[in-house]
């Protein structure tokens, strides 16, 4: 039988039952490889329930640093009888299947083209532990120990992680190390170790860190000076505010009084959450909320208010698979249109698209600067894959002494010295951005009335069509200003005829696919969108390539719609590569599609093509 042979390049998947404590063991595994200098990309594939259903944890290990989802499983660690039949089928021929051999495997499941590795986890636990809860918990640690032997993981690294994790609870270190040893020794004694697949120490991670995007975003909010967070729990955004809470407790408690230099309110729903953010921002604080798809829909009325009344608003949308409740624990990039044109009437919203935890951190902090500079909502669109999975990332950095850009705000002195009448919606600087004042600034000057209804430049209610139109045009001018204020796209490569546009979590797979294409002689330039509205670089990129692909993780090619709409490009000049089954897009898929098109293979159009003159 074929045995897959690989060093530092494989996919391993763990099949567990949720609620059995497997996540911490699986994380320990991933971290161990990371500490051995190997790039890893763990992904949690969990059900929308709390206990008792199948849950998976997939780790891609790749010393070249390809971190997008690869597809296929080389090693399956299956401790869930419920999903075992399906899990076995997923293993690549020549791959390895580690299972709990305390009971013999159902004969119908056995595959002759893969390598079965039985470890009697239950038996070992029953022998070692009396408490059933400990039995369940250590079972997971034991298979990690076994993997250490099977894959040649440095055992010291594992014990190092154990002592780091249980710092302050040292009494737990010994039992955990013991459990690792149980597995390690069992594997050593019963199997030839290492198997065909193994790891070797490298130095490929540099000073990178392993962190999930939501935690990074929460730190960005702290560094960006957010003082008010209002939210309503929803997967996969919950950990943004959880992280904010956790780090605020460490970093934002006034040492003298014990008082909080922040406020977190769990709102009664998403409408209230964004309402609170708008109220706080209006009153001069930096405030934000985090949500996911259904929350975006519910926030839509308020987003229109914030756009029209020009109130800085920071919103983090951690996307999941829609529509409606959809697949709440699966990833997608499908709120693009809903966010870009959120709310009725003529509205356009500024969007940010981070690709890494570091960018989640940076862009969250920057979102506050942008919101206050542009006086409008800033929606950061991340997703479950980036938000909830540990991703390898550049370390987080902050330039000490950096000042917040609080935008055009007149203070008491400025108002005092002002001879002309203050006009909240006057375009004094010609950039479409007016001046605002915080409530309570000056006893007699600068007060104005904020409203979602039409008003003149002095914030006085009016139903005059000309005034209304002037204001709407100023908002368009501000939109033009935004194009050069938001982060510019990242362009890699130049001069080739094929270009690829991507954003967010498609980045890793896209770059990997581009490498493969290069190996095959197809040279591709890439542009990674970081923000909407698009600036001129995007137009130029499209104009300077004969074939442009747009990669996105939704059904309806939503980003392509934005490009077509706002860059005035023909939709026929943009070829979509779409992925929307709830799993992250793979390099394979991107690669295949580009090859097919570039090599002139039959291109199946996504939608029934319309008769057209071009």
């Amino acid at each position, binding site marked *: 039988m074929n045995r897959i042979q690989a060093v530092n390049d494989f996919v391993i998947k763990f099949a567990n039952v949720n609620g059995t404590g497997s996540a911490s063991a699986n994380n320990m595994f991933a971290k161990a490889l990371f500490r051995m200098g190997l790039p890893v990309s763990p992904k949690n594939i969990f059900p929308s329930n709390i206990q008792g259903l199948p849950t998976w944890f997939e780790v891609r290990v790749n010393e070249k640093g390809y971190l997008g989802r690869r597809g296929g499983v080389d090693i399956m660690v299956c401790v869930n009888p419920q999903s075992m039949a399906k899990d076995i089928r997923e293993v690549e021929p020549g791959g390895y299947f580690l299972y709990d051999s305390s009971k013999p495997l159902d004969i119908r499941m056995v595959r002759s083209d893969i390598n079965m590795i039985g470890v009697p986890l239950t038996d070992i636990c029953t022998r070692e532990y009396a408490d059933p809860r400990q039995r369940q918990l250590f079972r997971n640690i034991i298979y990690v120990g076994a993997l250490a032997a099977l894959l040649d993981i440095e055992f010291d690294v594992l014990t190092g992680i154990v002592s780091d994790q249980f710092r302050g609870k040292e009494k737990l270190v010994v039992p955990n190390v013991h459990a690792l040893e149980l597995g390690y020794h069992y594997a050593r004694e019963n199997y030839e170790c290492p198997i065909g697949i193994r790891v070797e120490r490298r130095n490929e991670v540099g000073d990178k860190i392993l962190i999930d995007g939501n935690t990074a975003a929460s730190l960005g909010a702290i560094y960006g*000076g957010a003082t008010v967070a*209002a939210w309503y729990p929803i997967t996969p955004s919950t950990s943004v505010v959880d992280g904010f809470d956790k780090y605020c407790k460490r970093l934002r408690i006034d040492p003298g009084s014990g008082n909080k*230099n922040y*406020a977190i309110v769990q709102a*009664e*729903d998403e409408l209230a959450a964004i*309402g*609170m953010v708008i109220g706080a921002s209006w009153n001069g604080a930096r405030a934000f909320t985090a949500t996911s798809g259904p929350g975006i829909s519910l926030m839509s009325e308020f987003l229109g208010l914030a756009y029209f009344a020009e109130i800085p608003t920071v919103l983090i949308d951690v996307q999941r698979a829609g529509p409606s409740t959809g697949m709440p624990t699966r990833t997608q990039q499908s709120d693009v249109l809903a966010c870009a044109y959120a709310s009725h009437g003529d509205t356009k919203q500024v969007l940010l698209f981070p690709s890494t935890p570091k960018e989640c951190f940076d862009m969250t902090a920057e979102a506050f600067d942008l919101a206050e500079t542009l006086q409008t909502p800033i929606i950061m669109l991340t997703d479950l894959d980036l938000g909830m999975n540990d991703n390898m990332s550049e370390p987080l950095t902050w330039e000490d002494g950096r*000042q917040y850009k609080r935008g055009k705000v007149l203070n008491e002195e400025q108002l005092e010295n002002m001879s002309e009448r203050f006009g909240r919606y006057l375009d004094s600087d010609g950039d479409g951005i007016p001046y605002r004042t915080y409530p309570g600034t000056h*006893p007699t000057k600068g007060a104005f009335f904020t409203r979602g209804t039409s008003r003149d430049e002095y914030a006085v209610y009016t139903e005059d069509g000309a005034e209304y139109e002037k204001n709407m045009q100023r908002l368009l001018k501000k939109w033009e200003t935004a194009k050069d204020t938001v982060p510019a796209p990242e362009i890699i490569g130049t001069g080739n005829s094929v270009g690829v546009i991507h954003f967010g979590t498609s980045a890793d797979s896209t770059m990997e696919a581009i490498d493969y294409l290069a190996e095959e002689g197809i040279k591709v330039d890439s542009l990674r969108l970081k923000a909407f509205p698009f600036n001129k670089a995007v137009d130029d990129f499209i104009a300077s390539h004969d074939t442009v692909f747009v990669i996105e993780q939704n059904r309806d090619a939503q980003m392509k719609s934005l490009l077509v709409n706002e860059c005035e490009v023909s939709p026929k000049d943009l070829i979509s590569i779409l992925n929307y089954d709830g799993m992250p897009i793979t390099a394979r898929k991107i690669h295949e599609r580009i090859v097919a098109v570039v090599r002139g293979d039959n291109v199946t159009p996504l939608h029934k093509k319309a008769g057209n003159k071009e």
Partner: protein
Amino acid sequence: MTYQRPNFRHPNLPVNELGYTRKDYEGALSTLCAGCGHDSISAAIVQACFEMSIEPHKVAKLSGIGCSSKTPTYFLGNSHGFNSVHGRMPSVATGANLANREMIYVGVSGDGDTASIGMGQFTHAVRRNLNMMYVVENNGCYGLTKGQDSATADVGSASKKGEPNPFEPIDLASVALQLGATFVARSFSGDRAQLVPLIKAAISHRGFAFIDVISPCVTFNNNPASTKGYEHVRDHLAATGTVDFVPVKQEITTSYPEGESQEVTLHDGSVVHLQKADPELDINSRRSALRLIKDYKAKDQILTGLLFMDEDSRDLHEIIGTSNKPLRSLNESDLCPGQKVLDNLNESLR
């Protein structure tokens, strides 16, 4: 519509402790119907703030959408105001308050804005004991959208269309009491003698201070059965099918001593029975308030005045332990932990 307001200002106008005249507390000219109860409430707010010598710019005025929600434009012209979206003022007020605990927050809403679309947010602002005065200008109908019944309309009461409302009303004061509001009062728009001190007390209260003010909609809360003299005009409009005639009305006012009851005849000839305070009421007992409200209601009377107050009330900031300094005044050095902390953090993530 009171767009013609005399501009004459007496040189010896009375001033308050801060040297401001009453005029300094006024706002833009009202665009409400002549005689609308809401305008009387605006005047009471002006009066209270003037008498309390509040610095006008230290007040933030918030509202939803409706005739009532328009009124913040018509008082305290030197305060910032925020006319948000329908039914969602409580959340905007919550955010505003979190940003700066040192200002005074005045929320104005309507019965539609609060008891229908806003019921959820109202409930939770009460629960959080947000430090604000929350006034519902309660006319039992949707004024701005032309007179539909609201959820506070009495069962059997007839709207302009003439159909009796089939549903039991929501009594916002009782709901607020039930939900744990720390200050609950009821009054009548025309009773300035009662309303002004209640507003003062509400502003002084630390926590959520709710005042349900009965505020007749002179235009839509007309009971056809009782509008004798109006007949011709009504017939006329009914016949042409165009309800666009609003006769100009006078503001209804009343004034009567504590402990007594009073009949007030509304523009349409219908009568409200008000009872000012009740010696039995223990304003420190929620139950006592709830019971008396029901007792009076059973007699078809409305108990007005301060109904309940919790003097030990702790507002949202105290409950969650925020900084005494307004959050919005914190700066980079208060808020940003710097690179060193990140270095440690990065280290822990390797």
